[in-house]
């Protein structure tokens, strides 16, 4: 398969791994931001190719994991209304709110549908004029353009029965938060290439400067990740600070200008709570006032929901790279993908789910 096979070439991967081993002289802690990269690392066993000096810690880049519980509870409340068709990316259906998940709402008669694109939700709104169609707009900069576009399209079509429940988050403020934490161990970042494909990486040099770290824009195929690690290790070993692009086939410095434009047209920055981490200033997007009619929170007046979260799992520490899934006493015992205690075990991009799916024997035996 073109554009996939050439980046999964085993021989080249081994060569890159050898070069990484040759380059490294001391221990380094590198965080991959994106949950997609975490899964690729586990799926292809890339960590098994790396020398013991390199520790990959897993970042907060899993949109499902960091969506706060109160937003999920709001989604559940809206989805249970009989006049609503609630649409979402498939991953969100399993994520438990305080008491239920979207699967349960559907089983109890709610009209909950999986869509691959928010534009499909707009179509549903056209086809069902007597229903309110709500899309759960979660995610990072990657999903934001399409989600913004759905609102632009709905407005252009004059739809009064379409709205989105927004829970958007942005990567750079999370990097700030992690590097600024007194407990930080991260010495370099593999930046999330898909985010950079949209946003470019013009926001990143000030972060690298401020915290004196290397940031390497990295893709998602095995060779991409190994190349990203190699570039990062070279920079770390040379004491080099700055931003490099190891994903040039998809990412430019400026990024996708029209995508950024539609984001800015529809959304504005806001403080956002990250599940397990807390509120990070300016880390999210919300609808601009001129698009307030499309805000599901206003339309349905869900009010303020203050959910109670109990304290068993360490997903907050995992999302900040302070702990690894295998350091959690509940991992693979009380906490499994079927009975998740935390969002990092629920989402298919969550670090705990990745460890569980691909490595649990090794981990539990230890």
């Amino acid at each position, binding site marked *: 398969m073109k554009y996939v096979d050439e980046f*999964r070439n085993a021989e080249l991967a*081994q060569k890159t791994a050898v070069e990484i081993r040759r380059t490294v002289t001391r221990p380094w802690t590198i965080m991959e931001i994106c949950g997609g990269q975490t899964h690729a690392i586990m799926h292809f066993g890339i960590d098994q190719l790396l020398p013991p000096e390199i520790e990959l810690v897993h970042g907060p880049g899993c949109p499902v994991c960091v969506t706060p519980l109160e937003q999920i509870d709001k989604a559940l409340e809206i989805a249970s209304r009989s006049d609503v068709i609630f649409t979402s990316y498939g991953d969100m259906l399993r994520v438990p709110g305080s008491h239920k998940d979207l699967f349960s709402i559907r089983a109890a008669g709610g009209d909950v549908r999986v869509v691959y694109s928010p534009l499909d939700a707009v179509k549903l709104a056209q086809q069902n004029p007597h229903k309110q169609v709500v899309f759960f707009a979660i995610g990072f900069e990657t999903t934001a353009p399409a989600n913004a576009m759905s609102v632009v399209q709905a407005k252009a079509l004059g739809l009064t029965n379409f709205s989105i429940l927004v829970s958007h988050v942005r990567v750079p403020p999370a990097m700030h938060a992690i590097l600024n934490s007194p407990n930080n161990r991260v010495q370099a970042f593999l930046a999330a290439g898909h985010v950079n494909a949209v946003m470019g990486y013009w926001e990143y040099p000030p972060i690298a400067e401020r915290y004196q770290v290397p940031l390497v824009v990295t893709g998602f195929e095995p060779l991409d990740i190994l190349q990203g690690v190699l570039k990062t290790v070279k920079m770390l070993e040379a004491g080099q600070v700055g931003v490099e692009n190891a994903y040039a086939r998809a990412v430019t410095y400026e990024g996708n200008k029209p995508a950024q434009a539609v984001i800015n047209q529809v959304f504005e920055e806001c403080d956002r709570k990250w599940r397990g981490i807390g509120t990070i200033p300016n880390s999210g997007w919300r609808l601009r006032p001129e698009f307030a009619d499309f805000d599901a929170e206003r339309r349905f007046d869900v009010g303020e929901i203050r959910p109670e979260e109990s*304290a068993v*799992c360490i997903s907050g520490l995992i999302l900040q790279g302070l702990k690894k899934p295998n350091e959690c006493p509940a991992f693979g015992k009380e906490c499994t993908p079927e009975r998740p205690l935390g*969002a990092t075990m629920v989402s298919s991009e969550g670090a705990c789910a990745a460890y569980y799916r691909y490595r649990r024997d090794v981990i539990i035996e230890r």
Partner: protein
Amino acid sequence: MNNNPEPLTIQSAICPVPIRDRGYVIMGHGSGGKLSHDLIAARFLPAFDNEALRAGNDAGVVQTPGGTPLAISTDSHVVWPLFFPGGDIGKLAVCGTVNDVAMMGARPLYLTAGFILEEGLEIGLLEKVVESMQAAAAEAGVQIVAGDTKVVERGKADGLYINTAGIGVVRPTTEIGGANARPGDVVILSGTLGDHGIAVLGARGELGFESDLESDVAPLNHLVMAILATSDNVHVLRDPTRGGLATTLNEIARQSQVSIVLREDQLPIRPAVRAACEMLGFDPLYIANEGKLVAIVAREDAPALLATMRRTRYGEEAAIIGEVTADAPGRVLLKTGFGSTRIVDMLMGEMLPRIC
């Protein structure tokens, strides 16, 4: 960008209240994966408990008073859409049951067919389905000898559901079952993975792109007979339907208390299936097949079996995809092209609903 962030205050550990036992059925209970298994183990098995059911195979094996071993199986079909490239609900209903009976090393003989029809269903459409069932039954060499028809109000069913049950005679010398895989055996797959699931998804218009992929739905009983005529050392036969190859092999690994190690570079997968899976984030190991079987056989017989299978209509692309070891009982592992190893788990929850 925020240039003067406050140091991050870490909240105490945070987690949602997990959803324990649900009081109602969700779609994932019909996925063929972990939830289906749990439902069977917790709700059906204790109530109906008997030896044939406990064996946990595709068909129950029982003895007639005269001592003839019979394989009995049943399967309900709710696929949507009713017609898809390569097949339809009728062909699926016949092949599904024929294959489940055949996987016990049995020769399927007779089927029953129960129809649940929705008020308003076009008779012409029903006729097409019935013709397709007859064609599949003729190819398999089975007769449909009893049936039932029920009609429900419009809106209470999605056009048409079909249940079939089947019966077949097990060859007296045959010892085939999910608990019989042994360390040293090899795993043969009769052809490419995931064709059915992706074809149905395409027919629903859910791929977002065109594909000319056809479902692999086919009766496999003649292939099974060819396999059994070639070797007396076939230990397990199973068709990897819902839940895909991953789920089927996990069942076998648990029943036999062995581990099964797959080689990623040996798995036959069509480029169209790979591409669709890449785009949608699916793993072909979990996508349903309706015309493929897994044979776990003694290593020494594998070359002859492979040659036999490749000469048959539904086994042309048969391949050895892995082996059975004693290392990690109950586990399915996969050796990647990079030389690393990962766990291949059962399907959790729902992936593609109503594919059969």
